[in-house]
């Protein structure tokens, strides 16, 4: 039936999200590396320079979206890799919710940090 190969699985919402986030991350990660290593150099980092970027709403929003998509893509990738290695049953449920909790902690901490720079009181 499969004339051409694709890992596409009809109805696979997580499969689709993994790929949508991949496309987004390709662009934003390249931008991130370019901006913070080639435009601004690593040894010139300062709180004030980071603050100047983060007080711009478009940059702040992009970084929050970057954090959320990267966390989803990375943690979902780890989960998929573990399932691929044969993770099943109770272990699978426990690991799934551990990964969800770790993601939540990472996102909350990332937003707190972004808020500290942006001067938003919630941190």
């Amino acid at each position, binding site marked *: 039936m499969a004339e051409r190969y694709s*890992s596409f699985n009809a109805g696979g919402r997580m499969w689709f999200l993994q790929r949508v986030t991949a*496309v987004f991350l390709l662009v934003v990660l390249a931008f991130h590396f370019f901006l913070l290593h080639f435009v601004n150099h690593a*040894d010139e980092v300062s*709180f004030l320079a*980071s603050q100047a970027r983060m007080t711009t709403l478009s940059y702040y929003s992009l970084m929050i979206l970057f954090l959320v998509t*990267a966390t989803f893509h990375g943690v979902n990738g780890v989960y998929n890799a573990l399932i691929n290695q044969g993770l099943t049953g109770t272990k699978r449920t426990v690991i799934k919710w551990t990964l969800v909790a770790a993601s939540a902690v990472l996102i909350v901490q990332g937003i707190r940090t972004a808020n500290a720079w942006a001067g938003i009181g919630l941190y």
Partner: protein
Amino acid sequence: MSQSYNRGLIEDFSRWREFEAGMWAWIFHKFTGWVLIGYLFTHIAVLSTGIPAAGASEAALMAGEDVYTQTIVTLEGLLLVRILEVGLLAVAVFHMLNGTRLLLVDLGVGLEAQDKSFYASLILTGAITVASVPTFIAGAF
């Protein structure tokens, strides 16, 4: 129609001798993925020093004496960190290029040349990494 393949355990001794390009691409993608998510957690932990730094005085911030600036400056002053950053770039670039290759294959493009596109990903990763070394090492000595 979806298909899944039983790739066996990569841990099985000496199986690597039998691996073809696609299997190496799969292993490298997985390995680089683990490194990147591990780095993301570390990255946010280091950046979190920005939270206490936000409470520092204007004078301390201007002088770069806040905990965030000091942490980054100290880390970036270590040659080992600079070398690890080059490694991180290599890992990220490979994951991005090979990921593009996977997205294209899923869209029905380039399956017949999937081995060649893997080799191209490796060569391009090497070239971009080597070309970036001067920028990444600048100021470390």
